[in-house]
């Protein structure tokens, strides 16, 4: 411990000595760039521009947090970010044109030389000689940059448990809801044939809701590989999954079914938009394509009259997995 302290003291002394020497060297050297006349109006302009940029960056964060398709247009996000960049660029342009003292170079650009490199560093340093409120300007720059960084980092919050995601699990499906077709005719178990696929909706619910449509297929019960917790979800081998692709929210409109399973690709639900392919026999697992998570499965029941009914809600949130997903209420 003591040894460490000694090291720290030694390092501090070394840095202090270095600083003193730098200062002495600087005082001895004559100016290269003439001291410019301070321009307070330009400084004010830069401060204002950076301030506006900061406000736009904060605006992005607010718009992101408050986004919903009904109240705030998503274009606002792009406008905020774009304007933030625009005002930072304008501020930098004003700094370059009106605050930094410029020096005309008459000779050809000199070859790299150590002494001259030091000179260049000094030129850069002295160029700021016109600025009178250095700290304030630096502060404004840091505020704008920091706000922009925060704005860019904001979407990462969607990954965590910061915002409530309970609405995602809502759907019109309840235990005992009958499965009906597009014309509200209830499905009976024996109308579900192997090799075909059916779109079903919860009885009495709005069919346009994201969580309403399910795709129903009958598979060979011996070929099912559902997790143990879902063992009762597929009576007679009939399974139901959300019809909304978990990638970008297209309808799962393709059912690939083998005529001769021994030699042909096995049954799969395919989304026609980007070819995300899901395995209905293995709880909707993704077997190909850009989808990041399995299709939510709907537990099924067959009642005493032989009609198809839901056994509960979906196994997970319905719909595409993207940043604004929490605002597309499932029910």
């Amino acid at each position, binding site marked *: 411990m003591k040894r460490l302290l000694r090291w720290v003291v030694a390092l501090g002394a070394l840095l202090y000595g270095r600083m003193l020497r730098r200062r002495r060297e600087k005082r001895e050297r004559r100016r290269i760039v003439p001291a410019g006349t301070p321009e307070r109006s330009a400084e004010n302009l830069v401060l204002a521009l950076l301030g506006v940029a900061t406000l736009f960056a904060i605006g992005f964060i607010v718009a992101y947090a408050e986004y919903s398709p009904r109240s705030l247009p998503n274009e606002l996000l792009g406008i905020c970010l774009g304007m933030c960049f625009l005002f930072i660029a304008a501020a930098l342009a004003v700094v370059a044109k009106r605050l930094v003292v410029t020096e005309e170079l008459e000779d050809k650009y000199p070859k790299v030389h150590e002494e001259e490199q030091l000179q260049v560093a000094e030129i850069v340093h002295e160029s700021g000689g016109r600025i009178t409120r250095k700290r304030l300007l630096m502060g404004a720059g840091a505020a704008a940059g920091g706000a922009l960084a925060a704005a860019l980092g904001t979407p990462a919050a969607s990954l965590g448990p910061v915002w409530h995601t309970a609405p995602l699990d809502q759907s019109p499906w309840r235990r005992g809801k009958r499965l009906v077709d597009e014309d509200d005719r209830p499905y009976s178990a024996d*109308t579900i*044939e192997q*090799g*075909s*696929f*059916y779109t079903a909706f919860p009885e009495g619910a709005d069919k346009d809701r994201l969580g309403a449509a399910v795709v129903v297929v009958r598979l060979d019960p011996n070929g099912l590989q559902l997790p143990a917790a879902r063992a009762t979800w597929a009576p007679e081998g009939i399974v139901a999954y959300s019809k909304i692709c978990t990638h970008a929210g297209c309808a799962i*409109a*393709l*059912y*690939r*079914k*083998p*005529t*001769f399973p*021994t*030699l*042909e*690709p096995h049954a*799969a639900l*395919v989304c*026609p938009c980007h*070819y995300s*392919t899901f395995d209905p026999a293995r709880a909707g697992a993704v*077997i*190909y*394509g850009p989808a990041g998570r399995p299709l939510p499965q709907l537990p099924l029941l067959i009642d005493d009259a032989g009609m198809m009914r839901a056994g509960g809600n979906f196994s997970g949130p319905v719909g595409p997995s993207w940043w604004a997903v929490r605002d597309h209420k499932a029910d």
Partner: protein
Amino acid sequence: MSARTRLVAVAALVLFVGTGVALAQPQSGIVRPTFEPSAPSVQLGAELYAGNCATCHGIDGSGVSTPRRGAGGVLGAGPPLRRVGALAPDLYLRLGYMPLSSIHSEPESERVLLSDKEIRSLVAYVASLGAGPGIPHPAPSTGGISEGVHLFTEHCAGCHQVLARGGFVTGARVPPLQTVSPTQIAEAVRVGPYLMPRFSAGEISDSQLNSIIKYILSTRHPDNRGGWGIGNIGPIPEGLVAWWIAAPFLLFTCRVLAKRFRG
């Protein structure tokens, strides 16, 4: 050895190996009975079946569930045909889907190797193996295009594309519907060939099927509003064309601007 003898030897070798290969691959052609009756008959069908189908579909359409070597050492496996009726064989044979060159290949509409008489004989034979659905007789003229486009978009366009130009499903190609007959479309909907799902009359009624067929027939001469259909296969070629025209134009504009500012 002189040049001429060498040439003759090579020619003989090629001929010998060639015939050997041809003998080892009886599946590349159709095995025909020596005596052919003038009219289609179940008897002719049975003989054609035994020569060309039984390796994969088994004796009397019993099916071969696991791949095994049949006549001529050809690997065979296929679904049973006991209850398929006339519907499926008529579709598969008239499209040229069967006989397959290899059990692992995807059935595709190639050359139809059988004559019409042979097809009718085979269909009659397979239909005689067990009770099954018959060949449908669609009447597309009674359908409605507006209903057809709605149903086609819902049930078919995901794979076959909205103008029935075909496409892909993961693991297989999807055929275009530009050359198939109305009967074949109706058959395919009820059979569900290869990876296509089957649609029963409860899902797509016969009258709805007529509308779908009427729509498919109408896609063969689409109304190209832009003047150029670009294959009628959707946004990708459209985007390509836009970029091939837009990109050079933008580059040209950039150059003009840069020249002006430099000068």
